[in-house]
Structure formats: C-alpha cells, structure tokens
C-alpha cells in the first residue's frame, strides 16, 4: 500500500463508513480457506498501515467455484483513513497460470467509475471483499486442472493499489 491511499487520522475530513461491502458480501470464515497470504506492500513498518490478506483454498475440485477473499485490516492502534475507488469498493482479482499468463481478471476490460469513497477503519477493523471464481477463463471456457496463482488488489485514489501477495490454488482433475 502506498501513501496516497492512506491518511493519518489527522487528515480525516469525512464521516465514517461503518458497513462492509463487496459483491459477494460473504464476510464469514470459510473452512476451505487453507492458504493465507499476508502482504504489507509498500508499508515501511508493521505499524504504518493496513495489512492486506488474500484467502484462497489450497485445492479445489475441477468445476467447483473457487472462493477468494481479500481482507484489508487496520492493525495499528489508530483509526486509518482509506480513499477507495468506486461507489462500492472496487477490487480486482487476477488469476495466472503456471506460465504466468493471465487467465482471468475480475474487472475484465469494463470501465470502472472514477468516484472516490472515503472510508475509515477503526483499530482492528477489517474490510472484507469476496468473490467466487468459476474456474473459467476470460473467454468463458473452463480452465484445465493445474496450479494457478491468484492476486488481489483494492483500487484507491492513485496509480497504486492495496495489493496482496500471491496465493496458490490447485484445480484437481
């Protein structure tokens, strides 16, 4: 995460946002989430900003939806202001194959509205965003069994995003 996206409490100018968002709206823990990857992208210290976490199951049977969850948590002792793009928080998920080619991207090629949302995370509060990948490529065809890399990001007000580290999922035959 980079500085334009996150502001200290002193810069808070706007009302708090209490409720979570996300298209799937699933904020409950999912048992199949075995792999958890934490990222502190661009953050100089553990106290400096939110922790971006990607939850993705280690393996899924072919044809079954792959639940993916991004969590942005304020692990600091102070409220944290986030400037996030979209009327609903806009997040992207990119799936690449073992060759590094992009197989599927949540946002695809559709334009995203350029409105900016102001959101404050209380200490310990997390923003959770979830989506189910249907194991289909961008063109809509089922992907073959194999290992896939998943990355998540939350769009902000700058060229940077709140990025997770990659997670791995295996599609079983």
């Amino acid at each position, binding site marked *: 995460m980079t500085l334009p996206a996150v502001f200290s409490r002193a810069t808070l100018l706007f009302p708090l946002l209490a409720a979570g968002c996300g298209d799937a709206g699933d904020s409950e823990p999912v048992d199949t989430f075995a792999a958890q990857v934490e990222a502190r992208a661009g953050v100089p210290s553990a106290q400096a900003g939110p922790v971006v976490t990607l939850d993705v199951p280690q393996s899924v049977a072919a044809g079954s939806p792959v639940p993916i969850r991004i969590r942005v948590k304020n692990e600091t002792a102070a409220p944290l202001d986030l400037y996030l*793009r979209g009327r609903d928080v*806009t997040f992207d998920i990119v799936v690449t194959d073992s060759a590094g080619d992009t197989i599927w991207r949540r946002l695809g090629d*559709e334009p*995203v509205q*350029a*409105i900016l949302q102001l*959101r404050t995370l209380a200490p310990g509060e997390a923003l959770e965003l979830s989506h189910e990948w249907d194991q289909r490529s961008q063109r809509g065809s089922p992907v073959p069994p194999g290992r896939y890399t998943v990355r998540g990001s939350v769009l902000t007000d700058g060229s940077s995003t709140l990025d997770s580290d990659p997670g791995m999922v295996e599609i079983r035959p």
Partner: protein
Amino acid sequence: MDLKTTASRFIVLTSSALLLGACADAPTAVDAPSSGALSRSASADRLADLFAKASPAVMALGGTVFADNDESIGKLVFGVENARAIPGVTRALAAVGASSNEYVVQVTEPIRHMATLRDRFRPTQAGVQIHFGRYVCTMGFNVDHSGGRSFITNSHCTNTQGGVEGTTYAQPSRTVDPTVIATEVDDPLYVKGGSCPRGKKCRHSDASRALYSSSVASNRGDILKTTGANNGSLTVGGVFTVTSQDNTTKNFAKGTVLNKVGRTTGWSQGPVDRTCVNTNVSGSTVHQFCQTFVTAAVDGGDSGSPVFSITSGDSVQLVGILWGGGTGYFVMSPLASIQQELGSVVATK
C-alpha cells in the same frame, strides 16, 4: 532569515566550540577577543534588537512580503510587492530607530499559496473537488439552464445513480466549508428494455445537474488549468476558457486529442481511441450508450471532470464529461448526449 541556515550555523559553531574545548589543554588562558570582533558582535546585537522591533512594525503594513535579518551583509532586508510600499516601510523603520545604512528595502515577487484542485474556490470553477455523502468527485462545468444556474457532474456522483434525491454538495469538503453549494435537481432514471441489453439499465450519459444555492457564486466558462498536461500536478496555474461547446458530436474522430481536468490526476490529455461505444460499467448493471474512450490518465475522484478540446491557447471547446475508465484510458459522455437527457445548457464564458 533563513532558519535552517541559521540553525546549521549554530550547530556548526557549537560543535566547533565543543571540539576546540575538548582538544585544548585545560588550563590555557583564553585570548581576549579583538576590538574588531567586539565591534562586529555589538553591531550584530544591535541589528538583532532592531529586527525584533522592526519586523512586526513593517510586516503589519500592506504590500510587504518578508523581513530578514541578513547576517551575511549585516543589514535588515525587507521585501515589498511594489515600489509604492517603500515609503511606508521607510517611515516604520525610522520610527523604531533604524538608520538608512542598516536596512535595504527591495521589490520582490509576492509569496502566494499555490492552490490545488482540492482547495476551496469561490466563485466555483470547473475541475474542482466536490463532496457529497461519503464520496468525492469533480465538478464538471458551470452552466446556465432554463432551470437556473447550475453545475453538471456525473449521475453516479449523486446519492443514487438515476433519479433525483436532492443530493447536496460541499466544495471542497463539508469539513473545510459546510456550505451547501448546490442541490441535485435533475438525474434521469436509467431505463430497461428497447435497445438496452437484458439485465441492464441504460442511459446515454452519466450526467446530473445540481442547482446552485443563491449565495454561492460560480464562474461559467472557467475550467481550472493545472501546471501541465499529463504531469500529475494538481496545482492550479491558470484557467481554460470555454469559448465554444460541441452540442452535436457523439461520434468523435479517432485520434482527436481531448483533455480533462480532475481532482485526482489533474490535467490529462490524449487521443480518442474508441468512439460511440456502448459500454457496461464494472460492478453494476449500468449500460451507457455511445460513449467515447480517450487514452489518458484517470483515477478515483476524477468522476465528473470536464472534457474539452483546446482550440487556441487557453481557449477550449467543451465536449463532454468523464465518468470512469480503466488502465490508461478514460471514458466520457458527449455533451450532445448530456443535453439530450438534461436539456440544453450554456457553458461558455
């Protein structure tokens, strides 16, 4: 006075003194300072005392810019905006006992706060930040409309996209200035059926109109200009003047260079890449007919930016309003479509 320089000097001198003290044999007698050194010291003390009296007296006067006790030349230096301010400064210095060889008064450029697109502007001008609810957008452009003096921004920059809810706007934010500058009065509903794809709701523009509060001034025909195209600057360096508006074009020629000014990425400029595109909007059921894609920067907060072509110098033709984009491109609704849905507007100076 240059505080950093002075502080540095102090630190260097103090450090030097400590080092000297540490290296010297303890009982050695200290030489008395020379009379020249004493004279310089006395002069410096007098200037410091004089500065303490002169600075507040002079800086209270109109047209003054700075006051400096310039140790390098052993004089007080006062900056003024123009020569007309000099006599007043001279009188004030005489009143505190300064002789003419103890100071210099010089004309200098005034120090200005560099306003950005996120600052407060009255009268309002296009391209500035507006705030509603928990969201931030950009004010598109000021217009005269049969319904009254208004500004145009995006439909999705209202409490609900499509339909009028009386969204109230602050500029730049409610905290900086809680004044309601304008209230949403027109935002046509998105419609289903007809040529609208199944499962979608459609319009020809992502635009709404907000009626100004009578007490809030607005400048029609002004679009704030930042320091340069595609440099990411938000600092205002001038004004574009809307001298014409394109009321007819929906199909812009590919390669036409268009510009926008928005509160997040400033002034960006690039060629039309796709024209009259029917497009879905990510994360929603909204479908927009006949939109224009431009290869130029956009990011969260730029929604509502005025889109224009430069005709000559700072004269521009208004062509539309930005509402979104993807990697390396923005999408805008043509002014012709905006007027088709909101009624005709006059946006020129």
